């Protein structure tokens, strides 16, 4: 479903993505892991067409990202830090997006109900706390039944209860055959969710393996230990 080929991107002199390629069919859940500043968010933004890569091609469901725009109706995106028009209310933002997307089918309001966002519909976006903003982002990401979910640090800033609710929703949608791409630094919670791991460092993709393969290779039971095992091996000397 996703095909990324030889993506390169630099901001000024800083090479953020250096020849990144990977591909994935649907129905899996990919963890995108790597140290801070390794290019995870930039890669995600390339997938969404928010950042224009210098070279390389990205295809989502065989549609080239750099030319098209329709493919974005298949993507639900939850940004790391949501930015919304400050003087709009939560309800207005949600209605506006449905209106602009001209989405007529049944909306997936599980997250809205789980987080009880309807009570907060009259709050202005500018007054929201970081956690509530994350909840709104999550609600919008799931709202239009997309086939591909891109979640950038989904549980950062959420309280433990909400974070559990979100994970339950991810599990449920995974069973429905959606493709998930999740970045997180909390590896323990990825353990239960992901089936594949993509590891990036300094703008390069170091490996793309299934979780089981990674565990047997490193001889560790937990993802966090397997990754730290790997990081120690590949420490720049």
């Amino acid at each position, binding site marked *: 479903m996703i095909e990324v080929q030889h993506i390169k991107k630099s901001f000024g002199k800083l090479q953020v993505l250096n020849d990144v390629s990977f591909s994935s069919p649907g129905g899996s859940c990919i963890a995108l892991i790597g140290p801070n500043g390794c290019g995870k968010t930039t890669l995600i933004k390339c997938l*969404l067409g928010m950042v224009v890569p210098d070279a390389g091609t990205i295809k989502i469901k065989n549609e080239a990202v750099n030319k098209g725009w329709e493919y974005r109706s298949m993507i639900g995106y939850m940004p790391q830090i949501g930015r919304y028009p400050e003087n709009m209310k939560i309800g207005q933002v949600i209605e506006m997006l449905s209106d602009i997307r001209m989405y007529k089918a049944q909306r997936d309001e599980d997250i809205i109900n789980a987080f009880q966002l309807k009570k907060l519909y009259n709050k202005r976006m500018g007054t929201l706390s970081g956690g509530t903003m994350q909840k709104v982002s999550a609600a919008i990401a799931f709202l239009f039944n997309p086939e591909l979910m891109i979640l950038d640090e989904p549980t950062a800033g959420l309280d433990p209860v909400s974070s559990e609710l979100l994970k339950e929703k991810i599990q449920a949608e995974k069973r429905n055959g959606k493709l998930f791409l999740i970045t997180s630094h909390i590896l323990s919670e990825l353990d239960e969710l992901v089936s594949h791991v993509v590891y990036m460092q300094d703008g390069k993709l170091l490996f793309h393996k299934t979780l089981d393969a990674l565990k047997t290779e490193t001889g560790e039971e937990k993802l966090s230990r397997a990754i730290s095992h790997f990081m120690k091996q590949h420490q720049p000397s």
Partner: protein
Amino acid sequence: MRKIVKYILLDILKNKIVLVYTAFLLLITLSVFSLEDNTQKGMLTMLNLELFIVPLVSIIFSTIYIYNSSEFIELLVSQPIRRRSIWLSIFSGLAGALALAFIAGSGVPMLLFERSVISMMMIGLGVMLSVIFVSIAMLAAVTTRDKAKGIGMSILLWLYFSLIFDGIVLFLLFQFADYPIEKAMIGVTALNPIDLGRILVLLKMDVSALMGYTGAIFKDFFGTQKGVLLSFFVMLLWIALPLLYSLRKFNHKDL
């Protein structure tokens, strides 16, 4: 695209600055015409005010508005919408709102005081200048991420079009006073939409006799149907070129 324009127009209305601008224009127009008993003189005062205020408000308000809607733009870019539609919607929203504000604040009262070709031309000019300076603001706002720099650039551009350009023209006129540059001056006016508008309206007002030989040459050119059409075309270029260039930049911008 029509839907995005709707949201932008609603947002601009909620902002109230455009309403204040309309009221301000209304106040100026009414006071100018009630102070002058000669409407011809009143028109001349209106022309000078219009050429001063309309570009200033259009360019500054638009630049600040575009920077302030960066969140809105970011939100929409990740949705299944063409980048082109987002950018052109912002342009249409701003241009529509400012042009309407001018028509309501200045155009309608002007027509009430004097129903003539000159009034119609002044309204056309005001609308054109509103749209042109929105277009220039779009270009200024897309070139830099830094808000202070962007607004500074807008102010400089406005200063250039309303003051510095005239200074340069005067300087050239004096430097080349010994040469027959009157015809070349017609070409130079195309480089500034404000001057172009000023000359067009002044010639209609029959005060061109005050402008000497250059005035006669201008009258020869701008007084004809062809000259007016050509100037209109140049003004359209002033809308299209900055807008298209900014659109190209926006299409390749990282958000």
